[in-house]
């Protein structure tokens, strides 16, 4: 039950965020620069936090070093090199598969 309430609240809140500018603004300059700057940092902060949390922690304990970390490094290296989402995914998934098969 709680799960449904969480989802309904998140859905309504997210939709209100999505229509905020479209409904209220005709001129994007009206968002003050400091707020814009903070909003630009939301994506790297959120994704960075989730990446690091899932990579280094497992159910509240440190994840022992292995396939997860190495494959993630491969994905990051390819992402910075090719600047491509597809290649990054592919390289990370391939590296992870090889490492699992190798027994890491």
């Amino acid at each position, binding site marked *: 039950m*709680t*799960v449904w*309430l*969480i*989802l309904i*609240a*998140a*859905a309504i*809140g*997210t939709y209100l*965020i*999505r*229509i*905020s*500018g*479209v*409904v*209220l603004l005709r*001129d*994007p300059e*009206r*968002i003050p*620069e400091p707020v814009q*700057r*903070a*909003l630009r*940092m*939301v*994506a*790297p*902060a*959120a*994704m*960075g*936090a*989730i*990446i*690091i*949390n*899932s*990579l280094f*922690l497992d159910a*509240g304990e440190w994840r022992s070093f292995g*396939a*997860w970390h190495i*494959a*993630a490094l491969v*994905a*990051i290296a390819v*992402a*910075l090199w090719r*600047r*491509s*989402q*597809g290649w*990054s*995914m592919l390289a*990370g998934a391939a590296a*992870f598969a090889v490492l*699992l098969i190798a027994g890491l």
Partner: protein
Amino acid sequence: MSDPIPARPTRLGVGPQQRTDAWAGLKAIGPLMPGSALFGMAFGAVVRVAGIDPWAGMFASVSVVAGASQIAIVEAIRTGAPAIIAVITALIINARFALYSAALAPIWAAFPRRWRFGLAYLMTDQAAVVSLQNADAYPDPVRRRWFTVGAALPFVAIWWVGTAVGILLGPVIPAEWQIGFIVPLMFIAVMVPGLKRPAEFVTILVAGAVVLGGKDWPFGLNVFFGIIAGITAGAMFEPWWDKRRGAREGNDPLPGTDPLPEVGP
């Protein structure tokens, strides 16, 4: 590019010109569609791994339509976080849509109200970027809105299909495959290729330090405060860095040149 709309023999009320424009939108977002499908499957599988009601998982993709926040909600539920923490974390992650919404406001200003309200619901990171990048090619608002819906709707539809497939396949994927790795991998693929600003690296480092430092905090609060700390650090670092660089090079500080991060669904 923008011929006036010809007299239209319609099929289901949609004329050939509209179909052409919608098809062009679909082609523009096409290369990003596999990512949406894969991410949807990953989310569906993660829902099953967390032991959450499959229907709730499907409902999340249909109602919230924002993958990163949906995964954060699932993680919060899995770790027994209070509902309010789950909701606030999700809304902070989705606060970035306010930027898109503001950027799209002038581009959509001439659309009928129901189109603006409908397209806002479909507005993912990718669709927003495609819509912004192609706005100039479609000065006619009618053609522009059909192009936009052609990009936005299929991208979300494939997200729903992916979620359903992931929910169905989740239980049959062997545990040894460690499907959970898709969570960091997907976010790395979505975020890292677009990283340019030094402030973004500061943001990630600070967020990561708080996440790991708060390892023993309950309820996924380490992620919650990690995000807050990262945003704060990045937003404070950037003006300082710009000023410093401006002073060193004797230039005016560069304002934020690229208005939008290119990030995931």
